[in-house]
């Protein structure tokens, strides 16, 4: 957060890309975009493009990982080298290892893992283009991919971020807002279950700002949730 800079991020109540504070970027969601995976989904949020694939339930290797009570969920978040301004070296770095962890913990609460004892469910997320909010786009995609794979779930998880730029609480930060803003708070939420399954935050929030940001974010996830359901409906209709 907050490289100090002279960049003005809000002018006349409008953000640098013309949005209002509580406005999402254009969101596209498509289920079933890959042939090989058991389930898959593609998500675009503005300039951020994420694709997720699911394999499983399947036999888990190595065997010592097997859990007799439930499926083991594994997640891998990865940014393509060409998804960012300066080429990223391929392979996991500390950031992507942390994001893989919180992504798994964002999805676990809604999957009926106990229905798939002794198996593994693998979720792979690739960020093909990055313009802020890649982890939440990845979680949104992963959730649809899990449903596309026919994995039993309590609810879908929808994810988006809220934050603060130029002392204003805003929804869904783009890359520049993320770089030069004052706070960023990615959230994942299962609306039907009323469960916040991911929450991270860095920057500077008063208690009141936090509460506004949380309201914005939960509101944003609900709108994304509708698009997730629509994408799955289109997928099923196409398959019939």
């Amino acid at each position, binding site marked *: 957060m907050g490289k100090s800079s002279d960049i003005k991020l809000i002018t006349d109540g409008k953000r640098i890309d013309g949005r209002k504070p509580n406005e999402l970027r254009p969101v596209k969601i498509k289920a079933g975009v890959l042939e090989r995976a058991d389930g898959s989904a593609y998500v675009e949020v503005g300039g951020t493009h994420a694709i997720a694939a699911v394999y499983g339930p399947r036999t888990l290797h190595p065997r010592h990982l097997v859990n007799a009570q439930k499926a083991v969920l594994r997640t891998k978040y990865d940014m393509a080298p060409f998804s960012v301004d300066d080429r990223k070296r391929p392979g996991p770095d500390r950031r992507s290892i*942390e994001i893989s962890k*919180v992504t798994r913990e964002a999805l676990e609460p809604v999957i009926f893992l106990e229905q798939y004892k002794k198996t593994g469910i693998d979720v792979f997320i690739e960020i093909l283009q990055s313009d802020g909010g890649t982890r939440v786009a990845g979680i949104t995609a992963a959730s649809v991919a899990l449903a596309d794979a026919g994995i039993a779930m309590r609810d879908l998880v929808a994810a988006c971020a809220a934050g603060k730029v130029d002392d204003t609480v805003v929804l869904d930060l783009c890359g520049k807002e993320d770089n030069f803003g004052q706070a960023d708070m990615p959230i994942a939420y299962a609306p039907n279950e009323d469960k916040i399954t991911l929450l*991270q*935050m860095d920057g500077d929030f*008063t208690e009141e700002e936090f509460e506004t940001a949380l309201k914005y974010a939960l509101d944003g996830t609900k709108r994304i949730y509708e698009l997730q359901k629509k994408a799955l409906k289109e997928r099923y209709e196409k398959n019939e």
Partner: protein
Amino acid sequence: MNKIIPELVRNSVIGSIKEGKRLDGRAFDEYRPIEIEIGDLGKAEGSARVKIGNTRVECGVKIGEGEPYPDSPDEGILTVNAELVPMASPYFQPGPPDERAIELARVVDRGIRESKSIELKKLCITPEELVKVVYIDAYVLDYDGNYIDAAAFAAVNALQHTEIPEFGKLPVVKKPISNTFAKIGDAIVLDPSLEEESVMDARLTVTIEDNGHVCAMQKGGSGYFTADEIKNCIKTAKRKTKEIRKLVK
């Protein structure tokens, strides 16, 4: 010999919490005893040992020099690393930091970085060429629950006492305090013990700056929180932080 939490203990923790009590008798918003020992500045430019209950973290600060990042050419560099060393727990394995240790390092890092605790601009020697590098290494030597708050607090204490040779005191202006909560069933307890962590559904860390603002948060674990639970955690954290900040040596 083996100290893995037995099923019996797990049931006791849950049963007790349901009745509004913690196994060790603490209130839900009460820390275990906190001990702080400031290092005697041996090889480290700053160091501190923090014990929260039996959880023990050694934190050392080393100062080096290096090229600044291109996007902050006039600022020193902050690097936080954490190790869950295998001596601390039968659950920790030798090898490079796993996802838990990496998450720990990054949560500690965000508290310090986002609160602007260190005046990084004062660590610039020649813009675009040479700046001081602050390495914070947190070693968890004994793990009895809640290594996040122990490591974060050790870092805050070590930074307070960091002296750079031929330069002077490290310019530290904030004391961000991390407060970690565990959700067990419907209850939320502060500073979970190892036994409590073994049964918790989810974890929430809230880091509070000197001015009472929130500067970092992190949810962990396979469970979830509601909006109200998070709001309450923030309120508790703001309140408790005042006590804890006074303990900084």
